[in-house]
């Protein structure tokens, strides 16, 4: 069988298996295992299991359960509530200020955990009702929370970049640093958009009424202390890591411990919170691990059978495209796939296909990691099948319908596409910080 046929066959049967709605790890694992048995020859049967050993030996993967645990402790114990109050009081008087404050809140939450779910949960349960009550436009607010929470996977610590690092064999530390500036840039772009929009249409985001603005300076300063918590957690994690005292994995354990202790000190670690966060951590970690296990097996077989080479030759020789066109085409297909594929599945399916190709084309894999993450962010929230859309629907109050959610993300998705293009045209936005720190 030719390489092209193998690539098409494996990919098509995987898509078909996924469409049946069987658990993603089962669908991917089955296609990998079957191809290993039928097409590989001797030893093919053992590849799926050898992926388990590869998974075990991949050190940075230990950060995954740590950050998941941290995220659940933060969102379940609601220690982030005070943070919202802080932004509320300080940003309230500005037109659209509460929405801008929500973006700020999301950046802080993103700096404390590596998934977008925690930000989404905090935004939808705390910020959303408050903003609606103060007369903010519901479509605007919904978009703000979705766009803001997606920063969680770009600002370090990011779980998506950890997974990418595993597949692309790149150092996690550099990838994380590469995400900092684009993440902050994107947050700033969101804020500029909200500010300008609320200037032009003040009814979308009215400033707080006079009586609510009347908060004493002492009270305002007291609220500012809430901002210390994310700083403490972030510093406890990042300072020892950047100083080289601890490894990345050890730092993630320190972060998890700090968040856990903070919840205890604040008296928020009740039995129910403890149970939910520990159990959800197991559930989500297992989900991720089994998918990665299956995808590693699939990837090894897919690659070993020459399918990656086939895709590469399709792009370069047969279609005769230049590297940049291929790159743009890949990002586009990524967004399209993201609209109907589950996010985690997409992450582990797309990366093994595209990352080797990007390397072959001579692009920087750290830089591509950032592009990859931003594209994932966009794909997460583009209709009809963005993962974030459904999460939002599940968490938002009933007056916000699926239609509102669909409309709400359009301007933010456009801002993100602009950010993506900026990082593509000026790679230095992503690469400046890691180059500076690691002194390349």
């Amino acid at each position: 069988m030719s390489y092209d046929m193998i690539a098409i066959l494996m990919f098509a049967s995987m898509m078909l298996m996924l469409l049946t709605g069987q658990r993603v790890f089962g669908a991917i694992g089955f296609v990998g295992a079957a191809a290993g048995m039928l097409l590989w020859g001797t030893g093919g049967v053992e590849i799926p299991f050898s992926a388990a050993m590869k998974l075990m030996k991949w050190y940075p993967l230990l950060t995954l359960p740590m950050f998941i645990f941290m995220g659940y402790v933060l969102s379940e114990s609601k220690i982030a509530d005070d943070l919202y109050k802080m932004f509320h009081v300080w940003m309230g008087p500005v037109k659209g200020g509460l929405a801008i404050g929500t973006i700020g809140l999301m950046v802080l939450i993103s700096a404390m955990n590596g998934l977008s779910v925690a930000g989404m949960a905090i935004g939808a349960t705390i910020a959303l009702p408050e903003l609606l009550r103060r007369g903010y436009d519901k479509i605007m607010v919904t978009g703000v929370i979705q766009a803001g929470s997606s920063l969680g996977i770009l600002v370090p610590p990011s779980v998506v970049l950890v997974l990418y690092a595993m597949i692309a064999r790149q150092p996690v530390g550099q990838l994380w640093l590469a995400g900092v500036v684009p993440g902050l840039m994107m947050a700033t772009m969101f804020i500029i958009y909200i500010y300008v929009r609320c200037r032009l249409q003040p009814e979308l985001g009215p400033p707080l009424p006079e009586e609510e603005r009347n908060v004493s300076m002492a009270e305002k300063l007291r609220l500012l202390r809430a901002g210390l918590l994310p700083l403490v957690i972030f510093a406890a994690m990042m300072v020892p890591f950047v100083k080289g005292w601890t490894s990345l994995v050890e730092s993630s354990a320190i972060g998890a411990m700090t968040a856990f202790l903070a919840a205890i000190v604040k008296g928020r670690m009740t039995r129910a919170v403890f149970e939910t966060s520990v159990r959800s951590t197991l559930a989500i970690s297992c989900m991720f691990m089994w998918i990665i296990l299956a995808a590693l097996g699939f990837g090894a077989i897919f690659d070993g059978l020459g399918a990656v080479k086939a895709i590469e030759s399709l792009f370069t020789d047969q279609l005769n495209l230049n590297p940049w066109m291929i790159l743009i085409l890949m990002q586009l297909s990524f967004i399209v796939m993201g609209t109907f594929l589950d996010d985690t599945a997409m992450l582990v399916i797309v990366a093994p296909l595209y990352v080797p190709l990007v390397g072959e084309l001579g692009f920087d894999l750290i830089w591509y990691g950032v592009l990859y993450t931003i594209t994932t962010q966009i794909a997460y929230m583009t209709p009809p099948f963005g993962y974030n859309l459904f999460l939002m629907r599940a968490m938002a109050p009933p007056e916000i319908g699926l239609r509102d959610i669909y409309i709400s993300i359009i301007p933010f998705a456009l801002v993100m596409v602009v950010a993506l293009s900026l990082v593509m045209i000026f790679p230095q936005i992503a690469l400046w910080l890691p180059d500076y720190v690691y002194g390349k």
Partner: protein
Amino acid sequence: MPKPVLAYIRAIDAMNRFIGRIAMYLIFVLVGVLLWSSISKTLFSPSHWTLETAQFVMVAYYVLGGPYSIQLGSNVRMDLFYGGWSNKQKAWMDAFTVFFLMFYLGVLLYGGLSSFAYSLGQPYNVGTYEFFGDLIRTLFTQGFDAAGEKLGHLERSSTAWRPHLWPVKSLLCLGIFLMLLQCLAELFRDLGRIKGEAI
């Protein structure tokens, strides 16, 4: 549903839930090991056992917690079509496609057992199952020491600490096997749903 099938579902659910609930707390062991690693590194000489211990704990965490995570329904599915089906339609499809999942787990277990046998020093001219059969037979007929004689060169990790690899490989095999048992229970549950019995 016949009584033995119901008993099987209940027994497997209870056992995997129990094991999963224990595995759930391993997250704190993981945090502890990694914290010790950073403390010992800063204050005195770094301990060289922490890294691999953490990795072994992580394997136990996800592989023993796997069946429980299936019970919790946390394994994502692509719900493009699936999401729109009725419970009965879902049960029909699952009852069919779960065999693909079990096939994958079977392949994993096959590879796992052969890798486990290798880690116990299986002689190159003896098959995997022959080796395990011989080992178990000796253990029951002639006792522990005689079975120990049957083992060959035990595989070790190629690091400074050089731990044996058979404990983690046996753990992997056990976890995959428990996954298979859980999937079989899920199949029976779906068959029950098709007949209109909720279990």
